[in-house]
């Protein structure tokens, strides 16, 4: 079961603004999905290694050789708020 507080906490972690309706729906939907997912606890996974990759590769590395960078104008072309050659954002809450 997922409580409303958990929905709000996870939404904050995910940086998602949710409407009241969305919060209510997610509380229900996530609980229902996790009920199904919880069937995984039926499986004995003791001693089984996790798989994060199915490709049997290692040491795939790149030589330290420069490739062309983007023109600055190109890099900033789609930016919502380009300013003075940089990407402008609202400042993070002052930390000091």
């Amino acid at each position: 079961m997922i409580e409303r507080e958990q929905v709000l906490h996870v939404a904050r972690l995910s940086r998602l603004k949710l409407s009241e309706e969305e919060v209510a729906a997610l509380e229900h939907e996530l609980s229902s999905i996790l009920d199904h997912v919880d069937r995984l606890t039926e499986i004995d996974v003791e001693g089984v290694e996790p798989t994060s990759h199915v490709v049997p590769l290692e040491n795939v590395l790149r030589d330290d050789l420069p490739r062309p960078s983007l023109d600055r104008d190109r890099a900033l072309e789609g930016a919502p708020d380009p300013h003075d050659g940089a990407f402008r954002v609202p400042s993070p809450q002052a930390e000091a």
Partner: protein
Amino acid sequence: MAEHELLAATATETAGLIADGVVSSDECLNAWLDRAAEDRLNGYLWKADRAAAMRGVDPDSGAPGAGVPVAVKDIFCTTGVPTTAGSRILEGYIPPYTSTALSRLSASGMPMIGKTNMDEFAMGSSNENSAYGPVLNPWDHGRVPGGSSGGSAAVVAGRLAPWALGTDTGGSIRQPAALCGIVGLKPTYGAISRYGMIAFASSLDQCGPLTRDVTDAALMLSRLQGRDEMDSTSVGIEGGVELPSAVDLNGLRFGIPADLIGEGLEAGVRKVFEQTTAAIERLGGSIESIALPHSDHGISAYYVLAPAEASTNLARYDGVRYGMRESEDDLVSMYEETRGAGFGPEVKRRIMLGTYALSSGYYEAYYGRAQRVRTMIVRDFDKAFGQVDFVVTPTSPTVAFGLGEKTGDPWTMYLNDLYTVPMSLAGIPAISIPAGTAGPAGGGPELPVGFQIAAPAFAEQSLLEAAFALEREIGFEQEPQEVER
């Protein structure tokens, strides 16, 4: 030659006509641009003009398939062409680079006729999660084409493109191919570069062809596959891929996972599946029962792993560097409002699910456990392939369902992937071929049914040979009815 003949030809046949000088590549492109312009299925999100279609294309490549235009799922980044991944958050985004997969097709002389509609960030099995409206199934406009490569499947089935490029994370090529009555191939993870393909779940995503027949799938795969230095996880297919030519299945063993073929399978789909296994036997293949004891947990594992990877892959859509931005108040509001307004409900649901599964205190219970179950599913397949050459299942438990029919309950929608997800988790190649038609459970005109064949990793050539022989034996020739609603 008459235009309707050109449009009826497969991509491979068309390439032959161009190579033989029967039609010029220009005539071919014009004919298909005209067709795409008549999109009645909401299959395209962007349509090329001649100049845009030819951008980056080598007209003299002389490569197999040269001159045959291709429709491309809007998940592939394309320099100078809008790329949205079906999401509002990327509205107006124009990438400064092109994906490796599309570059390879361009280098092979294939123009791009358009970008196809899709479920937002490839999350969905019905194409109803597109921010730009659902795609209609060309067999019945009241039904879904499947997803997430619904646009790619619909434009090929509806003769709005000769063939198309799609992506498959848990079934997103195979399931829409099945629901639209065409061929869809998900290659082995690592066979084709993922560079420039917008990530959903990085350890599962793989692109592949949606085509009229198995030969076309082989032809496109042969151009796409290969190691790419821009993708650390790409391998390519050793020895390449050739057009298939097998005429029988003598001596080949096909395994049916008894654990998977159970409830939830529509009667009509079951019947077509049984007819197809009978066809295998007629061709000299044998049918055996195999055990994939953990595969029915595939959906559960998948709906932890894929959302978890997605939650971090989609974190970059933050309103800072590209795409839309909402609110200028303060940083946190900017993030939350941009993402809250930019993502649709299914994407939010999966981000939430994935964030939860990775969050402090839950990681081992969900993500860690799902990764271990994945290991067990991989081992199940290893063991099965010690016994048989191929694993076969229906591609989807149902035929195309009605628009809006399954949007009420996420888990019901997720069960569409029951047969396709285990192969994705194992990273092995699988193909869906049209195997017949069946009436939907609630009554109505006949709809196509797909048959899925899976093979061991990098055994694409033998998979294509088997699918080719079976395709001939089945002789599926029905055309979409375009039932209007």
